[in-house]
């Protein structure tokens, strides 16, 4: 069973990495968001470095949700979702494997690119490390929450904007704790660890809730 799940993870990662330039488009979108912010706020590096972690987080949040609405849709169209259902694998773990694969192909590149993009915003090195660490801990939660939305949209096909509407409210806690942990190293007298640990807890909780809810949504859309 582990082998089958690992195969699903690898297949999802490869597919989203190669087809339609999943990881690449996400990265470019992330860069575009980071680039556009100074045009809105002015090129003042002091301001930018102060709000930089928040900008990176919002950019990563939007980029992580980009394209996630297709997570199960193609499987549904070509029938492989039915095969997965019949395979006897627990659907919850299939959802988890899918989300993990998607994160490897789209979330991880965002995390790796974050310190580089952070330099554009003049974020100090310590905060840069903090942002990267919080993104590493937090983006899996974003992908998992997005997977619930993707599972709800499976039978619909045209989900793009709707997934964002459904999923964004649920990402608020992740954003709050991610940004406050990262910002603690720049502005705050508040310590880094408490919000960071809560962020990790969110990721773990969503690793439990998202597969259950996603599997329920998949069963509902196939029934």
């Amino acid at each position, binding site marked *: 069973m582990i082998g089958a799940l690992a195969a699903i993870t690898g297949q999802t990662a490869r597919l989203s990495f190669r087809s339609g330039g999943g990881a690449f488009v996400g990265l470019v979108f992330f860069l575009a968001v980071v680039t556009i912010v100074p045009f809105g706020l002015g090129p003042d590096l002091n301001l930018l470095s102060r709000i930089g972690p928040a900008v990176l987080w919002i950019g990563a949040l939007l980029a992580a949700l980009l394209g996630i609405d297709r997570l199960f849709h193609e499987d549904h169209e070509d029938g492989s979702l039915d095969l997965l259902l019949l395979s006897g694998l627990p659907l919850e773990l299939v959802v988890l494997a899918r989300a993990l694969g998607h994160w490897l192909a789209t979330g991880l590149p965002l995390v790796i690119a974050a310190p580089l993009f952070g330099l554009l915003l003049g974020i100090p090195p310590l905060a840069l490390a903090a942002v990267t660490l919080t993104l590493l801990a937090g983006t899996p939660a974003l992908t998992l929450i997005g997977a*619930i939305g993707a599972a709800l949209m499976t*039978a619909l096909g045209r989900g793009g904007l709707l997934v964002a509407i459904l999923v*964004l*409210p649920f990402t608020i806690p992740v954003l709050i704790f991610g940004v406050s942990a990262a910002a603690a190293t720049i502005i705050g007298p508040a310590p880094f660890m408490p919000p960071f640990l809560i962020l990790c807890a969110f990721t773990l909780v969503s690793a439990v809730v998202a597969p259950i*809810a996603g599997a329920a949504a998949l069963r509902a859309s196939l*029934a």
Partner: protein
Amino acid sequence: MPMAFIELANPSRFLDWSGRLLPFLWVATGVALGIGLYLSFFVAPPDYQQGETVRIMYIHVPSAWLAMFGYALMASAALGTLVWRHPLADVAARSMAPIGAAFTFLALVTGSLWGKPMWGTYWVWDARLTSVLVLFLMYLGLIALWRAVDDPGRAARLVAVLILVGAVNLPIIKFSVDWWNTLHQPASVLRIGGPTIDASMLWPLLIMAVAMMLFFLALTTMAMRNEILRRRLRTLQLTAAATAG
């Protein structure tokens, strides 16, 4: 579930007994709303700090309560949809969503109208306001999902999953927003705390809460009847189309 409850929840029987109940429900709503509004506008004293604007509270607070109560009811209906596959549970949830959203909207609007004279601004990113705004967003998302899925049975189960995910997440969001708020904006807003409210204001508030609750139930019952009839109509149309073609 007890048998009597199942009997009552049969759609035809529901149409029957709810039709007989509705006039009484509306009369009760009218009486309670009349008494409540009279008490809150003419009998309750103006606040020593806020003056007459405190009367907004008698609309605002019950609306906010109903916004959350509506979601709780929808969550239990969603459980009914997923666990017992009961058709009426989905009808109930679907009928309640716009009404709950309307009360959430009412709470937001009255709150911001109250905020202007009290805080000097229509909106502050206070923890409570923000949480209610998120709740409003979730109501709208649920309604959008309902409208996006064509097949009613499939829509029922999908939305039920989302409602339950929301029910799990709402406390987490509330907690996060509180944390965020204390981090960014420590205690800038003075509010009347629940237990410190004087009896002369508490009674009108409670009567208004009961009145608005009755109003909510009456509206929901009517919406549910409409929804049942709409589905029957749809079935009839589908049958007609099938026999004609």
